[in-house]
Structures are given as structure tokens and as C-alpha cells.
């Protein structure tokens, strides 16, 4: 049991970042910023491949938002908050929105009675491909109206200020770029911003559609390709991430193999996201309805803390991470 509750690898901290691997996340953001800013300023950089790369890195920027809001990249809380401004500009939404929408609501599914703002059931087109396209149109506003309601009751010090400041910063910088060079900004900044922000919402559908969210081990779909997880900073290992929200992303691969694979329905380990997308959304017209069975859950009660206890602990950790106290 001890193995279940401790980190799977030895942390390799540096003076600036929490783990040496954080430089990968910093690098992703730096490359992304270069990809969107260069074409605005340099005519010869306006190439379709640059646009495609900017879109892909915008999605990775949103992945970094996700990881950073679970566990800050830097040791310094001030630096972590400052980094959120840069990430918010990259996604054209305030990164701090992830605290209520993802860490506190999505991670609980509907177990605590608060409906998941990003549940796959929000879209119900018969042609499943349309659900993939349309999902952010529904979940985006759910998130932002939900965050507004959460802001009314949170006692998290500084959340509202940070959230509003990130919003103003993201829109102000984008507005400035539009004023400087309108069409290249629309094409190489705004479109990638939208793409990344909307794709990270789609991930909720991709990782939970047709899964059993009441289950301890079968609530999520995992994408286990090594190359995929290198660039995605281990975001393919979603089951263990849900069960151990406070675990650093670097440790997820090992924990997935040790803790999840022996207990989960093996159909929920997908070797390739592209193959899954083709199968579930393109080749199959209708939505997959086979919820994986619960037969692999004999070990769900191994003396571990209950799911709600783990949620409470994860919430406290998320609040501490965000620089405030738990409400």
C-alpha cells in the first residue's frame, strides 16, 4: 500500500524549476510563442506549415496550462503566477479557470453532486464526428459561467484578481497585435489560440466518452504511445492522473504501469490517439456505447483512502498550489 501512496520516482529538483523535466514545458511554451509572434512581425515566416505548427503547439500550451495548474513549474509562487499570464495569452482564456473547472469540478466527475461541466453527455449528435467538433461550443460556456458562480463563493484569496488580470492581459496583448498587424494576427495568433483552447476541451470527450465514470479504474481512456507522451508531458495517462491528481506528471507513466494496468479494463489502453480518433469518430458513424465492464475492480478497496477523501486531499493540494488556502 505504501507504494500506492508515494511518488514513483525520485524528484530531480533544480534551483528554478520543480523538476528537471519542467524545462520541456518551458520549451514548449517558448517555441509556441515564437511560432505565433514571428509571422506577425516577419512576412517571410507566414507559411502554412508555421500555422499548422502553431496550432499544434497551442494545444500543447493548453496541456502545459493543465499541468502547471496542478503543480506549478517553478518553485517560486510569484513566478508561477507570472507564467500563467503568458500561458493565458497563448490560449486566449485565463489559465486560472482550470482551478475550479478542471481541478475542483471535472476531477470529481459527478460524485460530489456537482455536475461535471465537461461531461461527454453534453453533446448528443447521432454522427459522432459532429460531437467531437461541437463539444467545445457547449463545454466552453459551461466552464466560464461555472467559474463565475464559483467566484461568487470562493474564499480563495486573490483568485478573482488573478483570473481577471489574466483575462485582461490575454485580450490586451492579442488586441495590441491586431492593432499592429491585423490579418497576420487573425491567421497566426487568434486561430491557433482558438484551436488550442478548444482542443483541450475536446480531450475531455476523447478521454471519457463511453467510459464508466462511476468506476475506480475504468473512468478514463489512456493513450500510451511513448512519443505521444513525451511531447504531451504524459497527459496520455489519464486514469492515474484522475486518481492521483497531486502526482507530478513525470511520475504518471510508471504509476500507470504499476497501479492502473493490473486493474483496468485493457480496452481503455489505446496505443495511438490518432487511430482511436479515426476509429471512434470517423470510421464509426455512431457513438461507441460499450461502457467497459467493472470486472477488473476487485482491488478497488485495498485500504486506500476513499475516493472522496482523495478528492478532498487533492483539492487542498490544488489550493495550496494556486497560492491560497482551501475553502
Amino acid at each position: 500500500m505504501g507504494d500506492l501512496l508515494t511518488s514513483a520516482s525520485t524528484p530531480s529538483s533544480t534551483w528554478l524549476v520543480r523538476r528537471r523535466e519542467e524545462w520541456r514545458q518551458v520549451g514548449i511554451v517558448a517555441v509556441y510563442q515564437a511560432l505565433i509572434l514571428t509571422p506577425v512581425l516577419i512576412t517571410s515566416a507566414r507559411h502554412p506549415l508555421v500555422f499548422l505548427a502553431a496550432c499544434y503547439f497551442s494545444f500543447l500550451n493548453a496541456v502545459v496550462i493543465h499541468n502547471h495548474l496542478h503543480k506549478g513549474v517553478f518553485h517560486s509562487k510569484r513566478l508561477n503566477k507570472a507564467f500563467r499570464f503568458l500561458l493565458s495569452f497563448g490560449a486566449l482564456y485565463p489559465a486560472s479557470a482550470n482551478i475550479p473547472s478542471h481541478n475542483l469540478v471535472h476531477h470529481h466527475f459527478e460524485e460530489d453532486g456537482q455536475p461535471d461541466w465537461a461531461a461527454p453527455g453534453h453533446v448528443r449528435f447521432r454522427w459522432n464526428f459532429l460531437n467531437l467538433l461541437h463539444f467545445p461550443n457547449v463545454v466552453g460556456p459551461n466552464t466560464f459561467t461555472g467559474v463565475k458562480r464559483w467566484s461568487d463563493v470562493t474564499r480563495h484569496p486573490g483568485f478573482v484578481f488573478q483570473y481577471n488580470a489574466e483575462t485582461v492581459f490575454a485580450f490586451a496583448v492579442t488586441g495590441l497585435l491586431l492593432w499592429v498587424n491585423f490579418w497576420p494576427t487573425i491567421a497566426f495568433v487568434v486561430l491557433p489560440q482558438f484551436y488550442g483552447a478548444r482542443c483541450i476541451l475536446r480531450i475531455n470527450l476523447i478521454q471519457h466518452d463511453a467510459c464508466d465514470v462511476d468506476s475506480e479504474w475504468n473512468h478514463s481512456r489512456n493513450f500510451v504511445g511513448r512519443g505521444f507522451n513525451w511531447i504531451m508531458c504524459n497527459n496520455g495517462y489519464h486514469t492515474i492522473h484522475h486518481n492521483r491528481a497531486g502526482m507530478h506528471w513525470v511520475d504518471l507513466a510508471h504509476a500507470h504501469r504499476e497501479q492502473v494496468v493490473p486493474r483496468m479494463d485493457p480496452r481503455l489502453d489505446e496505443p495511438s490517439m490518432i487511430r482511436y480518433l479515426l476509429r471512434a469518430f470517423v470510421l464509426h458513424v455512431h457513438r461507441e456505447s460499450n461502457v467497459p465492464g467493472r470486472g477488473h475492480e476487485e482491488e478497488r478497496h485495498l485500504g486506500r483512502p476513499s475516493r472522496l477523501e482523495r478528492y478532498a486531499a487533492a483539492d487542498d493540494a490544488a489550493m495550496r498550489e494556486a497560492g491560497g488556502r482551501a475553502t
Partner: protein
Amino acid sequence: MNTTALLAWMGLGFFWVHTLLMAAHALGEGRALSRRLGAWRRAGGLRRAQVTQGTGPEHRLAVYEVEQTGRSKGDGTIHFHDRAYRSLVDGGKIELRGGAVVTLSPRAAIEVWTPPARQRAKANVFEEADFKAAQTLAVKARGFPRVLEYSIRVGDEVRLFGWDGQGERSTRPSAGESAVVGETVGSPLTPVIATFDPRAWLRRRAWGARLAALVIVLSAVAVTVPMFVGEPFGLEAKVGALAAVIVFNLQQLWLKFVRDHTREPSQCHVRGRWSLEVPRGT
């Protein structure tokens, strides 16, 4: 055509694809309500009736419950969010116009509908004496739990769907029908007992959803037209493109508004808040 122009065209295509998806979604919400009305019409409509016996507490026949949690940051306002919606039957008898009697057994699967406006009004009513105790809990992590109840009792006039004029069941219970309804999306054939005539309400919402779909499409037209007036990629096109970015976000909020307002009375958001600043009680 240079790359920027190509990408601008692509952006416009992306905007229109999503405009049509949102319009289709709004139409779908309206169609779901119309389907319920159609099912009622085909089954002979709603039966007017009066509750003559209720076996629950204080002669209660059935109750609609909304389970909520109230949270506050200690500023004199408690905000509630809905956790679950439940329709529960205690049991009793209902006399249809014409004299036939319907007997409801306890835990029968039937949706209890009360007017959404009444549900929301009740959610905001409180006594000052209760506020302090509620706020003490509401500032804690678990929040202040409460259950709003909307009861149907002996003497109440109701509308009934699911029984014919002779008091026989006119719809078959579906396989997934459970005693606690309202926690999942109901089928158009799920029996309903309503304290108001919901047909006008459903019709209004169904047409509202269709109108909303039209507004979504027209707003897209309104911002697309300037892009093709005047010089290509000139000032008018810039205004149109900027407006499209704004309208795209507004369309999504508009669709959320439609989705919230087409939720049936046994599923609609109640929420509510208690605030010491606003007039209390009714």
C-alpha cells in the same frame, strides 16, 4: 492567394461550420420538447384531475425534490447549486374529469412537474433566523445542504399524462423506468403529473429554441456580409472579422442560454441565493 488570405478564408469556414452546429443543437433542443408535446397529443393529451387521496405526510401524493448545497464566502450571501432532481410518489388516488380514478402506488415512476418560476421563487425565500446557522455551514468546505420540496397534496388540481380517460395506463413503462425519475433525461412517454398546464410552456420554449437557432445563423450572416463589401481585406473586412470573433463567443453563450431554458420542469436549474441585502420572504 497568399497564406494569410488562405488562412482568413479557412477561419471564416471554421466560423460557419460551428455556427451551423450551434444552430442545429438549438433546433435539437426545440425538437425534443416538441417530441414530448407530440407524444402527449397522440396519447390523447393531458387529463385534468384532482388529487383525492395522498398516503404521504400531510396527505401528500407526490413530491418534486431539488437537492442543493449552499456556499458562501461569509459576505451575507449564500449561493445554492443543484445536486440532484428527484420526483417521488408517496401514493394515493387522483380523480379524472369524468369520474374515473387513477391509483398511484408508492414509488411509481412518474415525473412531477411544477412551474419552473415557482421553483426558483421558492429557492430565494428564507427566514432571517435560519440565515446565521446556514451561513456557518455554507462557509465550510462541505457547504450548507438543503432539499427544496414541491408537494402535490389532496385537493390540488393536476394535469396527468400516461393514463386514458378510463384511468388505464396509456403508455407502457419503459425498461429503464425507475421509481426515482428526474435524475435522468425522461423519455417523451414517461408519465407526468403536473401542477400546471405545461403545454404552453413547452410550446413557448420549443419555438424559443427555433428562434434562437435563427438568431445564431443571422448573427453569422451579419458579420460575414461586411467582409465582402468594399476592398478585399480592407477596413470593412477587418470590422467583419473582428465582429466574427466576438459573435462566435456570444453564440456559444447564447446556446448555453437556450440549453438552460429548454430543460424540462423536472430537470431545470433552480439554484437561488439567500442575501441579507434583498427583501426576504413572500
